[in-house]
Protein backbone atom coordinates (compact mmCIF):
# COMPACT_ATOMS: atom_id res chain seq x y z
CA UNK A 1 0.00 0.00 0.00
CA UNK A 2 0.94 3.56 -0.39
CA UNK A 3 2.48 4.17 2.95
CA UNK A 4 2.49 0.70 4.37
CA UNK A 5 4.08 -1.58 1.86
CA UNK A 6 6.34 0.72 -0.03
CA UNK A 7 9.94 -0.29 0.22
CA UNK A 8 11.43 1.99 -2.41
CA UNK A 9 11.88 5.74 -2.26
CA UNK A 10 9.02 8.19 -1.99
CA UNK A 11 7.20 8.46 -5.29
CA UNK A 12 7.66 12.17 -5.78
CA UNK A 13 10.62 11.51 -7.98
CA UNK A 14 9.26 8.28 -9.34
CA UNK A 15 9.63 9.72 -12.82
CA UNK A 16 13.38 9.58 -12.94
CA UNK A 17 14.96 11.37 -15.90
CA UNK A 18 15.73 8.02 -17.47
CA UNK A 19 12.09 6.93 -17.50
CA UNK A 20 10.93 6.59 -21.10
CA UNK A 21 7.99 8.62 -22.35
CA UNK A 22 4.85 6.58 -21.78
CA UNK A 23 1.33 6.55 -22.99
CA UNK A 24 -1.25 7.63 -20.45
CA UNK A 25 -3.91 5.09 -19.72
CA UNK A 26 -5.67 6.68 -16.76
CA UNK A 27 -7.62 9.22 -18.85
CA UNK A 28 -8.79 6.38 -21.06
CA UNK A 29 -10.18 4.55 -18.06
CA UNK A 30 -11.80 7.74 -16.84
CA UNK A 31 -13.43 8.45 -20.21
CA UNK A 32 -14.62 4.86 -20.43
CA UNK A 33 -16.25 4.96 -16.99
CA UNK A 34 -17.93 8.34 -17.41
CA UNK A 35 -18.90 7.67 -21.01
CA UNK A 36 -20.56 4.43 -19.96
CA UNK A 37 -22.45 6.11 -17.15
CA UNK A 38 -23.59 8.88 -19.51
CA UNK A 39 -25.36 6.51 -21.91
CA UNK A 40 -26.25 3.72 -19.50
CA UNK A 41 -29.97 4.56 -19.08
CA UNK A 42 -30.50 4.03 -22.81
CA UNK A 43 -28.91 0.61 -22.73
CA UNK A 44 -30.33 -0.85 -19.55
CA UNK A 45 -33.70 -1.76 -18.19
CA UNK A 46 -35.22 0.74 -15.77
CA UNK A 47 -34.45 -1.15 -12.60
CA UNK A 48 -30.81 -1.39 -13.62
CA UNK A 49 -30.73 2.37 -14.09
CA UNK A 50 -31.76 2.66 -10.45
CA UNK A 51 -28.95 0.29 -9.55
CA UNK A 52 -26.49 2.37 -11.59
CA UNK A 53 -27.42 5.54 -9.71
CA UNK A 54 -26.76 3.65 -6.49
CA UNK A 55 -23.32 2.77 -7.87
CA UNK A 56 -22.52 6.40 -8.53
CA UNK A 57 -23.65 7.48 -5.06
CA UNK A 58 -21.48 4.84 -3.42
CA UNK A 59 -18.67 5.87 -5.73
CA UNK A 60 -18.94 9.37 -4.29
CA UNK A 61 -18.55 7.90 -0.82
CA UNK A 62 -15.58 5.87 -2.01
CA UNK A 63 -13.98 9.00 -3.49
CA UNK A 64 -14.38 10.69 -0.14
CA UNK A 65 -12.52 7.85 1.56
CA UNK A 66 -9.89 7.80 -1.16
CA UNK A 67 -9.21 11.50 -0.61
CA UNK A 68 -8.43 11.02 3.06
CA UNK A 69 -6.58 7.72 2.87
CA UNK A 70 -5.25 7.44 -0.66
CA UNK A 71 -4.07 11.02 -0.92
CA UNK A 72 -3.41 12.15 2.64
CA UNK A 73 -2.73 8.88 4.45
CA UNK A 74 -5.39 9.38 7.11
CA UNK A 75 -6.99 6.06 7.95
CA UNK A 76 -10.68 6.74 8.42
CA UNK A 77 -13.00 3.94 9.41
CA UNK A 78 -15.84 6.38 9.83
CA UNK A 79 -16.71 7.79 6.41
CA UNK A 80 -20.20 6.29 6.71
CA UNK A 81 -20.79 8.48 9.77
CA UNK A 82 -20.94 11.62 7.61
CA UNK A 83 -22.83 9.75 4.91
CA UNK A 84 -25.46 8.50 7.33
CA UNK A 85 -25.74 11.70 9.34
CA UNK A 86 -26.41 13.71 6.19
CA UNK A 87 -28.91 11.07 5.07
CA UNK A 88 -30.76 11.33 8.37
CA UNK A 89 -30.69 15.12 8.20
CA UNK A 90 -32.32 15.34 4.79
CA UNK A 91 -34.83 12.66 5.78
CA UNK A 92 -35.74 14.74 8.84
CA UNK A 93 -36.01 17.86 6.68
CA UNK A 94 -38.48 16.01 4.48
CA UNK A 95 -40.42 14.47 7.35
CA UNK A 96 -40.67 17.37 9.77
CA UNK A 97 -40.47 20.44 7.55
CA UNK A 98 -41.76 18.97 4.31
CA UNK A 99 -38.74 20.27 2.41
CA UNK A 100 -37.61 18.15 -0.50
CA UNK A 101 -36.37 20.83 -2.89
CA UNK A 102 -33.04 19.99 -4.41
CA UNK A 103 -31.91 23.56 -3.71
CA UNK A 104 -32.23 22.97 0.03
CA UNK A 105 -31.51 19.28 0.31
CA UNK A 106 -28.15 19.18 -1.39
CA UNK A 107 -26.60 22.16 0.41
CA UNK A 108 -27.98 20.79 3.68
CA UNK A 109 -26.42 17.38 3.08
CA UNK A 110 -23.15 18.97 2.08
CA UNK A 111 -23.23 21.25 5.11
CA UNK A 112 -23.99 18.48 7.60
CA UNK A 113 -21.12 16.40 6.24
CA UNK A 114 -18.83 19.39 6.32
CA UNK A 115 -19.69 20.47 9.85
CA UNK A 116 -19.60 17.00 11.34
CA UNK A 117 -16.33 16.04 9.69
CA UNK A 118 -14.81 19.32 10.75
CA UNK A 119 -15.81 18.61 14.35
CA UNK A 120 -14.48 15.06 14.23
CA UNK A 121 -11.25 15.98 12.49
CA UNK A 122 -10.50 18.98 14.66
CA UNK A 123 -10.90 16.72 17.67
CA UNK A 124 -8.95 13.76 16.30
CA UNK A 125 -6.31 15.45 14.16
CA UNK A 126 -5.53 18.78 15.77
CA UNK A 127 -3.90 19.23 19.12
CA UNK A 128 -0.62 19.28 20.92
CA UNK A 129 0.30 15.65 20.35
CA UNK A 130 0.39 14.53 16.74
CA UNK A 131 -2.11 11.66 16.58
CA UNK A 132 -0.96 8.17 15.66
CA UNK A 133 -2.49 6.35 12.72
CA UNK A 134 -4.12 3.85 15.01
CA UNK A 135 -5.62 6.56 17.17
CA UNK A 136 -7.33 8.18 14.19
CA UNK A 137 -8.47 4.82 12.84
CA UNK A 138 -9.94 3.75 16.17
CA UNK A 139 -11.39 7.20 16.84
CA UNK A 140 -13.32 7.25 13.57
CA UNK A 141 -14.34 3.61 14.00
CA UNK A 142 -15.67 4.30 17.48
CA UNK A 143 -17.49 7.43 16.32
CA UNK A 144 -19.29 5.45 13.61
CA UNK A 145 -20.15 2.66 16.03
CA UNK A 146 -21.48 5.08 18.65
CA UNK A 147 -23.52 7.01 16.08
CA UNK A 148 -25.14 3.83 14.82
CA UNK A 149 -26.00 2.78 18.38
CA UNK A 150 -27.53 6.19 19.06
CA UNK A 151 -29.60 6.13 15.89
CA UNK A 152 -30.78 2.61 16.69
CA UNK A 153 -32.30 3.59 19.99
CA UNK A 154 -33.36 7.19 19.47
CA UNK A 155 -37.12 7.29 19.03
CA UNK A 156 -37.05 10.64 17.22
CA UNK A 157 -34.84 9.08 14.53
CA UNK A 158 -37.12 6.10 14.16
CA UNK A 159 -35.02 3.63 16.13
CA UNK A 160 -34.26 0.32 14.45
CA UNK A 161 -36.54 1.08 11.51
CA UNK A 162 -35.03 4.40 10.58
CA UNK A 163 -37.12 6.99 8.76
CA UNK A 164 -39.24 5.64 5.92
CA UNK A 165 -41.13 7.49 3.21
CA UNK A 166 -38.59 10.02 1.98
CA UNK A 167 -40.45 11.69 -0.93
CA UNK A 168 -38.92 12.19 -4.39
CA UNK A 169 -36.55 15.09 -4.80
CA UNK A 170 -38.20 18.20 -6.28
CA UNK A 171 -37.25 21.43 -8.01
CA UNK A 172 -40.20 23.80 -7.96
CA UNK A 173 -43.02 21.67 -9.34
CA UNK A 174 -40.69 19.30 -11.11
CA UNK A 175 -40.25 15.90 -9.50
CA UNK A 176 -37.08 13.94 -10.10
CA UNK A 177 -38.20 10.60 -11.50
CA UNK A 178 -35.80 7.68 -11.88
CA UNK A 179 -34.22 8.97 -15.07
CA UNK A 180 -33.99 12.61 -14.01
CA UNK A 181 -32.59 11.52 -10.65
CA UNK A 182 -30.04 9.39 -12.47
CA UNK A 183 -28.79 12.36 -14.46
CA UNK A 184 -28.81 14.59 -11.40
CA UNK A 185 -26.59 12.06 -9.63
CA UNK A 186 -24.46 11.71 -12.73
CA UNK A 187 -23.93 15.46 -12.99
CA UNK A 188 -22.98 15.73 -9.32
CA UNK A 189 -20.75 12.69 -9.56
CA UNK A 190 -18.92 14.11 -12.57
CA UNK A 191 -18.60 17.55 -10.99
CA UNK A 192 -17.25 16.18 -7.71
CA UNK A 193 -14.89 13.89 -9.57
CA UNK A 194 -13.48 16.73 -11.65
CA UNK A 195 -13.09 18.97 -8.61
CA UNK A 196 -11.29 16.27 -6.67
CA UNK A 197 -9.13 15.49 -9.66
CA UNK A 198 -8.10 19.13 -9.86
CA UNK A 199 -7.54 19.20 -6.11
CA UNK A 200 -5.25 16.20 -5.89
CA UNK A 201 -3.28 17.28 -8.95
CA UNK A 202 -2.75 20.80 -7.61
CA UNK A 203 0.07 22.00 -5.41
CA UNK A 204 -2.22 21.33 -2.47
CA UNK A 205 -2.36 17.73 -3.65
CA UNK A 206 1.42 17.65 -3.84
CA UNK A 207 1.62 18.72 -0.21
CA UNK A 208 -0.91 16.02 0.66
CA UNK A 209 1.13 13.37 -1.14
CA UNK A 210 4.15 14.55 0.80
CA UNK A 211 2.25 14.20 4.06
CA UNK A 212 1.14 10.73 3.06
CA UNK A 213 4.63 9.53 2.27
CA UNK A 214 6.83 11.47 4.70
CA UNK A 215 4.76 13.34 7.22
CA UNK A 216 7.66 14.28 9.44
CA UNK A 217 9.75 15.69 6.63
CA UNK A 218 6.91 17.91 5.48
CA UNK A 219 6.59 19.09 9.06
CA UNK A 220 10.26 20.01 9.12
CA UNK A 221 9.80 21.95 5.89
CA UNK A 222 7.36 24.14 7.77
CA UNK A 223 4.07 22.80 6.45
CA UNK A 224 1.29 22.77 9.01
CA UNK A 225 0.59 19.10 8.53
CA UNK A 226 -2.38 19.00 10.90
CA UNK A 227 -4.12 21.85 9.13
CA UNK A 228 -3.70 20.20 5.75
CA UNK A 229 -5.09 16.97 7.08
CA UNK A 230 -8.04 18.70 8.69
CA UNK A 231 -8.85 20.52 5.47
CA UNK A 232 -8.81 17.40 3.34
CA UNK A 233 -10.78 15.44 5.94
CA UNK A 234 -13.42 18.16 6.01
CA UNK A 235 -13.68 18.27 2.21
CA UNK A 236 -14.03 14.50 2.15
CA UNK A 237 -16.68 14.67 4.86
CA UNK A 238 -18.66 17.16 2.77
CA UNK A 239 -18.53 14.79 -0.21
CA UNK A 240 -19.63 11.88 1.95
CA UNK A 241 -22.47 14.06 3.23
CA UNK A 242 -23.57 14.91 -0.30
CA UNK A 243 -23.56 11.22 -1.16
CA UNK A 244 -25.57 10.43 1.96
CA UNK A 245 -28.20 13.03 1.10
CA UNK A 246 -28.55 11.58 -2.39
CA UNK A 247 -28.68 8.05 -1.02
CA UNK A 248 -31.57 8.90 1.31
CA UNK A 249 -33.57 10.10 -1.72
CA UNK A 250 -32.42 7.17 -3.80
CA UNK A 251 -33.53 4.53 -1.35
CA UNK A 252 -36.53 6.47 -0.08
CA UNK A 253 -35.65 5.77 3.53
CA UNK A 254 -32.75 5.93 5.95
CA UNK A 255 -31.78 3.35 8.52
CA UNK A 256 -29.16 3.05 11.28
CA UNK A 257 -26.60 0.88 9.47
CA UNK A 258 -26.24 3.68 6.93
CA UNK A 259 -23.87 5.36 9.36
CA UNK A 260 -22.41 2.27 10.91
CA UNK A 261 -19.12 0.46 11.04
CA UNK A 262 -20.04 -2.12 8.43
CA UNK A 263 -20.67 0.39 5.66
CA UNK A 264 -17.57 2.37 6.66
CA UNK A 265 -15.35 -0.65 6.34
CA UNK A 266 -17.08 -1.80 3.17
CA UNK A 267 -16.11 1.48 1.56
CA UNK A 268 -12.53 1.00 2.69
CA UNK A 269 -12.44 -2.41 1.08
CA UNK A 270 -14.04 -1.14 -2.17
CA UNK A 271 -11.27 1.42 -2.45
CA UNK A 272 -8.56 -1.10 -1.72
CA UNK A 273 -9.97 -3.46 -4.28
CA UNK A 274 -10.12 -0.80 -6.97
CA UNK A 275 -6.83 0.78 -6.02
CA UNK A 276 -6.34 3.63 -3.55
CA UNK A 277 -4.49 6.75 -4.52
CA UNK A 278 -6.22 7.10 -7.88
CA UNK A 279 -9.70 8.54 -7.84
CA UNK A 280 -10.91 6.33 -10.66
CA UNK A 281 -9.63 3.28 -8.78
CA UNK A 282 -12.09 3.91 -5.98
CA UNK A 283 -14.89 4.22 -8.51
CA UNK A 284 -13.87 1.00 -10.24
CA UNK A 285 -13.76 -0.81 -6.90
CA UNK A 286 -17.35 0.18 -6.15
CA UNK A 287 -18.53 -0.81 -9.61
CA UNK A 288 -16.75 -4.16 -9.55
CA UNK A 289 -17.75 -5.32 -6.08
CA UNK A 290 -21.29 -3.95 -6.10
CA UNK A 291 -22.03 -5.43 -9.53
CA UNK A 292 -20.60 -8.79 -8.54
CA UNK A 293 -22.63 -8.71 -5.34
CA UNK A 294 -25.72 -7.77 -7.30
CA UNK A 295 -25.20 -10.65 -9.72
CA UNK A 296 -24.09 -13.32 -7.28
CA UNK A 297 -25.78 -12.71 -3.96
CA UNK A 298 -29.00 -14.22 -5.31
CA UNK A 299 -27.46 -17.55 -6.24
CA UNK A 300 -24.93 -17.72 -3.42
CA UNK A 301 -26.52 -15.86 -0.55
CA UNK A 302 -24.43 -17.44 2.19
CA UNK A 303 -21.20 -18.15 0.35
CA UNK A 304 -20.80 -14.83 -1.43
CA UNK A 305 -19.89 -12.66 1.60
CA UNK A 306 -17.22 -15.22 2.53
CA UNK A 307 -15.85 -15.29 -1.01
CA UNK A 308 -15.80 -11.50 -1.03
CA UNK A 309 -13.79 -11.49 2.19
CA UNK A 310 -11.29 -13.94 0.72
CA UNK A 311 -10.93 -11.92 -2.49
CA UNK A 312 -10.25 -8.77 -0.49
CA UNK A 313 -7.72 -10.54 1.67
CA UNK A 314 -5.90 -11.77 -1.42
CA UNK A 315 -5.91 -8.28 -2.94
CA UNK A 316 -4.54 -6.76 0.26
CA UNK A 317 -1.83 -9.39 0.50
CA UNK A 318 -0.71 -9.68 -3.08
CA UNK A 319 -2.04 -6.71 -5.07
CA UNK A 320 -1.79 -3.64 -2.89
CA UNK A 321 -2.30 -1.36 -5.89
CA UNK A 322 -5.69 -2.90 -6.60
CA UNK A 323 -7.47 -3.31 -9.92
CA UNK A 324 -6.14 -0.07 -11.32
CA UNK A 325 -2.61 -1.37 -10.78
CA UNK A 326 -3.28 -3.90 -13.52
CA UNK A 327 -3.99 -1.19 -16.05
CA UNK A 328 -1.68 1.69 -15.28
CA UNK A 329 1.97 1.87 -14.35
CA UNK A 330 3.30 2.89 -10.97
CA UNK A 331 4.62 6.06 -12.57
CA UNK A 332 1.24 7.11 -13.83
CA UNK A 333 -0.54 6.05 -10.65
CA UNK A 334 1.53 8.55 -8.72
CA UNK A 335 0.71 11.34 -11.15
CA UNK A 336 1.97 14.87 -11.62
CA UNK A 337 1.16 18.00 -9.74
CA UNK A 338 0.46 21.56 -10.77
CA UNK A 339 1.03 23.13 -14.17
CA UNK A 340 3.53 21.34 -16.37
CA UNK A 341 6.95 22.84 -16.56
CA UNK A 342 6.54 25.64 -14.06
CA UNK A 343 6.73 23.76 -10.79
CA UNK A 344 7.56 20.25 -11.91
CA UNK A 345 9.07 18.16 -9.12
CA UNK A 346 12.76 17.58 -9.33
CA UNK A 347 13.56 14.93 -11.87
CA UNK A 348 10.21 14.95 -13.61
CA UNK A 349 10.55 14.80 -17.38
CA UNK A 350 9.49 17.95 -19.20
CA UNK A 351 6.92 16.10 -21.29
CA UNK A 352 5.23 14.87 -18.13
CA UNK A 353 1.86 16.36 -18.91
Amino acid at each position, binding site marked *: *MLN*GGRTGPAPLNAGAPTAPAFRRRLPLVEWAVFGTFAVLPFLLADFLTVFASRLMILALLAISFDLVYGFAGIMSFGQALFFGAAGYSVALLARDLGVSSVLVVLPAALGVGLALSWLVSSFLLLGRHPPSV*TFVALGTLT*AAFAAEELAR*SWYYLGGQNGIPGVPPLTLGHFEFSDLAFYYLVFALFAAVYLLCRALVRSQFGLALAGIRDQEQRLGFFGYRVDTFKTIVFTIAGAIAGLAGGLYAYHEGFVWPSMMGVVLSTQIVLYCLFGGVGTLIGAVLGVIAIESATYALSEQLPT*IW*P*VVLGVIL*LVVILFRPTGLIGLVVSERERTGDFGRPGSVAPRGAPSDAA
Partner: protein
Amino acid sequence: MATALNALFEILSFTSIMVLIVLGLGIIASMMGIFNFAHGEFVLLGAYFTWFGHAHGAPVWLAMVLAPFAVGVIGFALERLVIRRFYDRPVMAMLGTYALAVVMRETVRGLIGGLYLNVPAPLVGSVSLGGLEFAQWRLAIIAITLLVILCSWTLLAMTSFGLRVRASLENPALARASGISTKAIYAITFTFGAALAGLAGALVVPIFSLFADLGLRFLIQGFLGVMLGGVGSFVGPILGAGVVGSASAALPWVISPVVADVLVFVAAIGVMKLLPNGILAGRRV
Protein backbone atom coordinates in the same frame (compact mmCIF):
# COMPACT_ATOMS: atom_id res chain seq x y z
CA MET B 1 -27.17 -2.12 49.59
CA ALA B 2 -27.99 -5.56 48.32
CA THR B 3 -28.69 -4.20 44.84
CA ALA B 4 -25.47 -2.25 44.91
CA LEU B 5 -23.51 -5.37 45.80
CA ASN B 6 -25.28 -7.36 43.12
CA ALA B 7 -24.56 -4.64 40.60
CA LEU B 8 -20.94 -4.67 41.63
CA PHE B 9 -20.88 -8.38 41.07
CA GLU B 10 -22.35 -8.15 37.58
CA ILE B 11 -19.88 -5.41 36.75
CA LEU B 12 -17.02 -7.57 37.94
CA SER B 13 -18.06 -10.52 35.84
CA PHE B 14 -18.40 -8.41 32.69
CA THR B 15 -15.06 -6.76 33.37
CA SER B 16 -13.52 -10.21 33.66
CA ILE B 17 -14.64 -11.05 30.14
CA MET B 18 -13.19 -7.79 28.84
CA VAL B 19 -9.90 -8.54 30.56
CA LEU B 20 -9.72 -11.96 28.92
CA ILE B 21 -10.28 -10.42 25.50
CA VAL B 22 -7.89 -7.54 25.99
CA LEU B 23 -5.13 -9.74 27.37
CA GLY B 24 -4.67 -11.24 23.91
CA LEU B 25 -5.42 -8.07 21.98
CA GLY B 26 -3.04 -6.05 24.11
CA ILE B 27 -0.09 -8.39 23.94
CA ILE B 28 -0.46 -8.75 20.16
CA ALA B 29 -0.59 -4.96 19.80
CA SER B 30 2.40 -4.50 22.08
CA MET B 31 4.56 -7.20 20.59
CA MET B 32 3.80 -7.26 16.90
CA GLY B 33 2.63 -3.67 16.59
CA ILE B 34 -0.68 -4.56 14.98
CA PHE B 35 -4.28 -4.09 16.01
CA ASN B 36 -6.03 -7.34 15.30
CA PHE B 37 -9.47 -6.59 13.89
CA ALA B 38 -10.20 -10.30 13.79
CA HIS B 39 -10.02 -10.59 17.57
CA GLY B 40 -13.74 -10.08 18.02
CA GLU B 41 -14.29 -12.95 15.61
CA PHE B 42 -12.12 -15.22 17.77
CA VAL B 43 -14.59 -14.49 20.55
CA LEU B 44 -17.38 -15.36 18.15
CA LEU B 45 -15.65 -18.60 17.13
CA GLY B 46 -15.20 -19.57 20.78
CA ALA B 47 -18.91 -19.05 21.30
CA TYR B 48 -19.71 -20.93 18.11
CA PHE B 49 -17.60 -23.98 18.97
CA THR B 50 -19.19 -24.11 22.40
CA TRP B 51 -22.64 -24.08 20.85
CA PHE B 52 -21.56 -26.59 18.21
CA GLY B 53 -20.24 -29.02 20.83
CA HIS B 54 -23.35 -28.61 22.90
CA ALA B 55 -25.65 -29.09 19.90
CA HIS B 56 -23.85 -32.33 19.07
CA GLY B 57 -24.43 -33.81 22.46
CA ALA B 58 -21.25 -32.95 24.33
CA PRO B 59 -21.67 -31.63 27.86
CA VAL B 60 -21.44 -27.84 27.92
CA TRP B 61 -18.42 -27.74 30.20
CA LEU B 62 -16.50 -30.06 27.88
CA ALA B 63 -17.39 -27.90 24.85
CA MET B 64 -16.18 -24.86 26.79
CA VAL B 65 -12.90 -26.51 27.62
CA LEU B 66 -12.29 -27.58 24.03
CA ALA B 67 -13.43 -24.36 22.32
CA PRO B 68 -10.35 -22.28 23.25
CA PHE B 69 -8.08 -25.00 21.88
CA ALA B 70 -9.98 -25.09 18.60
CA VAL B 71 -9.80 -21.30 18.32
CA GLY B 72 -6.11 -21.47 19.19
CA VAL B 73 -5.50 -23.88 16.31
CA ILE B 74 -7.30 -21.54 13.91
CA GLY B 75 -5.36 -18.60 15.29
CA PHE B 76 -2.08 -20.45 14.77
CA ALA B 77 -2.95 -21.33 11.19
CA LEU B 78 -3.95 -17.74 10.41
CA GLU B 79 -0.77 -16.40 11.97
CA ARG B 80 1.41 -18.67 9.87
CA LEU B 81 -0.50 -18.07 6.66
CA VAL B 82 -1.57 -14.45 6.81
CA ILE B 83 -0.95 -12.37 9.91
CA ARG B 84 2.84 -12.66 9.95
CA ARG B 85 2.95 -10.74 6.67
CA PHE B 86 1.47 -7.72 8.42
CA TYR B 87 3.92 -7.27 11.28
CA ASP B 88 5.11 -3.68 11.61
CA ARG B 89 2.68 -2.51 8.95
CA PRO B 90 -0.13 -1.28 11.19
CA VAL B 91 -2.46 0.06 8.50
CA MET B 92 -2.23 -2.99 6.27
CA ALA B 93 -2.69 -5.15 9.34
CA MET B 94 -5.95 -3.41 10.22
CA LEU B 95 -7.31 -3.91 6.73
CA GLY B 96 -6.06 -7.46 6.35
CA THR B 97 -7.32 -8.63 9.72
CA TYR B 98 -10.60 -6.89 8.98
CA ALA B 99 -10.92 -8.92 5.78
CA LEU B 100 -10.16 -12.04 7.84
CA ALA B 101 -12.83 -10.99 10.30
CA VAL B 102 -15.34 -10.68 7.46
CA VAL B 103 -14.50 -14.19 6.29
CA MET B 104 -14.93 -15.69 9.76
CA ARG B 105 -18.04 -13.74 10.64
CA GLU B 106 -19.80 -14.49 7.39
CA THR B 107 -18.85 -18.16 7.64
CA VAL B 108 -20.44 -18.35 11.07
CA ARG B 109 -23.45 -16.41 9.81
CA GLY B 110 -23.79 -18.93 6.99
CA LEU B 111 -23.55 -21.80 9.45
CA ILE B 112 -26.04 -20.58 12.05
CA GLY B 113 -28.22 -18.36 9.87
CA GLY B 114 -29.39 -15.06 11.30
CA LEU B 115 -30.44 -16.73 14.54
CA TYR B 116 -29.79 -16.08 18.20
CA LEU B 117 -28.82 -19.44 19.68
CA ASN B 118 -28.80 -20.18 23.38
CA VAL B 119 -26.42 -22.37 25.30
CA PRO B 120 -27.21 -23.23 28.92
CA ALA B 121 -24.64 -22.40 31.57
CA PRO B 122 -22.84 -25.43 32.99
CA LEU B 123 -23.48 -24.13 36.49
CA VAL B 124 -27.03 -23.12 37.23
CA GLY B 125 -28.40 -21.66 40.39
CA SER B 126 -26.80 -19.35 42.82
CA VAL B 127 -24.73 -19.29 45.94
CA SER B 128 -25.93 -17.35 48.90
CA LEU B 129 -23.23 -15.49 50.69
CA GLY B 130 -23.98 -13.39 53.73
CA GLY B 131 -27.64 -13.19 52.78
CA LEU B 132 -26.89 -12.25 49.16
CA GLU B 133 -27.49 -14.42 46.11
CA PHE B 134 -24.74 -14.68 43.51
CA ALA B 135 -25.24 -16.46 40.21
CA GLN B 136 -22.84 -19.39 40.18
CA TRP B 137 -21.89 -19.00 36.54
CA ARG B 138 -20.85 -15.39 36.96
CA LEU B 139 -18.78 -16.36 39.99
CA ALA B 140 -17.12 -19.02 37.87
CA ILE B 141 -16.31 -16.47 35.15
CA ILE B 142 -14.61 -14.22 37.69
CA ALA B 143 -12.68 -17.12 39.17
CA ILE B 144 -11.53 -18.41 35.78
CA THR B 145 -10.39 -14.94 34.73
CA LEU B 146 -8.40 -14.46 37.90
CA LEU B 147 -6.83 -17.86 37.36
CA VAL B 148 -5.92 -17.02 33.75
CA ILE B 149 -4.38 -13.68 34.74
CA LEU B 150 -2.41 -15.36 37.51
CA CYS B 151 -1.17 -18.10 35.16
CA SER B 152 -0.16 -15.70 32.38
CA TRP B 153 1.56 -13.42 34.84
CA THR B 154 3.47 -16.35 36.33
CA LEU B 155 4.35 -17.56 32.87
CA LEU B 156 5.63 -14.15 31.83
CA ALA B 157 7.39 -13.17 35.02
CA MET B 158 8.71 -16.44 36.43
CA THR B 159 9.71 -18.72 33.57
CA SER B 160 12.51 -18.58 31.05
CA PHE B 161 9.93 -18.74 28.29
CA GLY B 162 8.37 -15.61 29.76
CA LEU B 163 11.73 -13.95 29.74
CA ARG B 164 12.06 -14.66 26.03
CA VAL B 165 8.58 -13.29 25.40
CA ARG B 166 9.37 -10.11 27.29
CA ALA B 167 12.67 -9.79 25.44
CA SER B 168 10.93 -10.01 22.07
CA LEU B 169 8.45 -7.42 23.23
CA GLU B 170 10.98 -4.94 24.56
CA ASN B 171 13.60 -5.15 21.85
CA PRO B 172 13.01 -7.63 19.04
CA ALA B 173 16.29 -6.92 17.26
CA LEU B 174 18.34 -7.56 20.37
CA ALA B 175 16.24 -10.63 21.15
CA ARG B 176 16.97 -12.07 17.72
CA ALA B 177 20.65 -11.27 18.12
CA SER B 178 20.61 -13.16 21.40
CA GLY B 179 19.35 -16.28 19.70
CA ILE B 180 15.66 -16.02 20.46
CA SER B 181 13.42 -17.02 17.61
CA THR B 182 11.03 -14.07 17.62
CA LYS B 183 9.11 -15.74 14.80
CA ALA B 184 8.26 -18.66 17.04
CA ILE B 185 7.49 -16.36 19.95
CA TYR B 186 5.14 -14.30 17.78
CA ALA B 187 3.34 -17.42 16.59
CA ILE B 188 2.92 -18.73 20.13
CA THR B 189 1.77 -15.36 21.43
CA PHE B 190 -0.78 -14.96 18.68
CA THR B 191 -2.10 -18.48 19.25
CA PHE B 192 -2.34 -17.82 22.96
CA GLY B 193 -4.18 -14.54 22.41
CA ALA B 194 -6.62 -16.18 20.04
CA ALA B 195 -7.23 -19.00 22.50
CA LEU B 196 -7.94 -16.50 25.29
CA ALA B 197 -10.46 -14.71 23.09
CA GLY B 198 -11.98 -18.10 22.33
CA LEU B 199 -12.20 -18.79 26.06
CA ALA B 200 -13.93 -15.45 26.59
CA GLY B 201 -16.40 -16.37 23.86
CA ALA B 202 -17.04 -19.77 25.41
CA LEU B 203 -17.66 -18.20 28.80
CA VAL B 204 -20.03 -15.45 27.63
CA VAL B 205 -22.20 -17.50 25.34
CA PRO B 206 -24.60 -18.59 28.14
CA ILE B 207 -25.10 -14.94 29.07
CA PHE B 208 -25.18 -13.20 25.68
CA SER B 209 -26.33 -16.10 23.43
CA LEU B 210 -24.71 -16.74 20.06
CA PHE B 211 -25.24 -14.48 17.04
CA ALA B 212 -23.03 -13.54 14.13
CA ASP B 213 -22.35 -9.94 15.19
CA LEU B 214 -21.31 -10.88 18.71
CA GLY B 215 -17.68 -9.95 18.11
CA LEU B 216 -17.91 -6.34 16.99
CA ARG B 217 -18.93 -4.80 20.31
CA PHE B 218 -16.19 -6.67 22.17
CA LEU B 219 -13.68 -5.66 19.54
CA ILE B 220 -14.29 -1.93 19.88
CA GLN B 221 -14.39 -2.04 23.66
CA GLY B 222 -11.23 -4.12 23.61
CA PHE B 223 -9.44 -1.61 21.38
CA LEU B 224 -10.45 1.22 23.65
CA GLY B 225 -9.14 -0.75 26.61
CA VAL B 226 -5.80 -1.39 24.94
CA MET B 227 -5.36 2.20 23.81
CA LEU B 228 -6.45 3.52 27.19
CA GLY B 229 -4.06 1.29 29.07
CA GLY B 230 -1.27 2.00 26.64
CA VAL B 231 0.43 -0.30 24.19
CA GLY B 232 3.69 -1.87 25.29
CA SER B 233 3.11 -3.33 28.70
CA PHE B 234 1.37 -6.31 30.27
CA VAL B 235 -0.52 -4.51 33.01
CA GLY B 236 -1.58 -1.44 31.00
CA PRO B 237 -4.12 -3.09 28.72
CA ILE B 238 -5.55 -5.13 31.61
CA LEU B 239 -6.04 -1.96 33.56
CA GLY B 240 -7.57 -0.24 30.52
CA ALA B 241 -9.90 -3.20 29.99
CA GLY B 242 -10.86 -2.97 33.63
CA VAL B 243 -11.72 0.70 33.29
CA VAL B 244 -13.64 0.37 30.02
CA GLY B 245 -15.32 -2.87 31.02
CA SER B 246 -16.46 -1.69 34.42
CA ALA B 247 -17.55 1.71 33.11
CA SER B 248 -19.66 0.21 30.35
CA ALA B 249 -21.12 -2.35 32.75
CA ALA B 250 -21.69 0.11 35.58
CA LEU B 251 -23.19 3.12 33.79
CA PRO B 252 -26.30 1.31 32.52
CA TRP B 253 -27.39 0.97 36.15
CA VAL B 254 -27.61 4.75 36.30
CA ILE B 255 -28.49 5.99 32.81
CA SER B 256 -29.94 4.41 29.68
CA PRO B 257 -27.63 1.73 28.21
CA VAL B 258 -27.16 3.43 24.84
CA VAL B 259 -26.25 6.80 26.31
CA ALA B 260 -23.91 4.96 28.66
CA ASP B 261 -22.20 3.22 25.74
CA VAL B 262 -21.71 6.41 23.80
CA LEU B 263 -20.51 8.20 26.92
CA VAL B 264 -17.91 5.53 27.62
CA PHE B 265 -16.65 5.67 24.03
CA VAL B 266 -16.41 9.43 23.98
CA ALA B 267 -14.72 9.54 27.38
CA ALA B 268 -12.22 6.86 26.38
CA ILE B 269 -11.32 8.68 23.15
CA GLY B 270 -11.04 11.92 25.10
CA VAL B 271 -8.66 10.42 27.63
CA MET B 272 -6.58 8.92 24.82
CA LYS B 273 -6.38 12.32 23.20
CA LEU B 274 -4.94 13.78 26.38
CA LEU B 275 -2.73 10.83 27.23
CA PRO B 276 -1.65 9.32 23.92
CA ASN B 277 0.59 6.79 25.61
CA GLY B 278 -2.09 5.50 27.93
CA ILE B 279 -2.92 6.05 31.54
CA LEU B 280 0.24 4.29 32.66
CA ALA B 281 2.49 6.37 30.42
CA GLY B 282 5.92 6.85 31.90
CA ARG B 283 5.36 4.32 34.64
CA ARG B 284 6.41 1.19 32.86
CA VAL B 285 5.13 -1.92 34.54
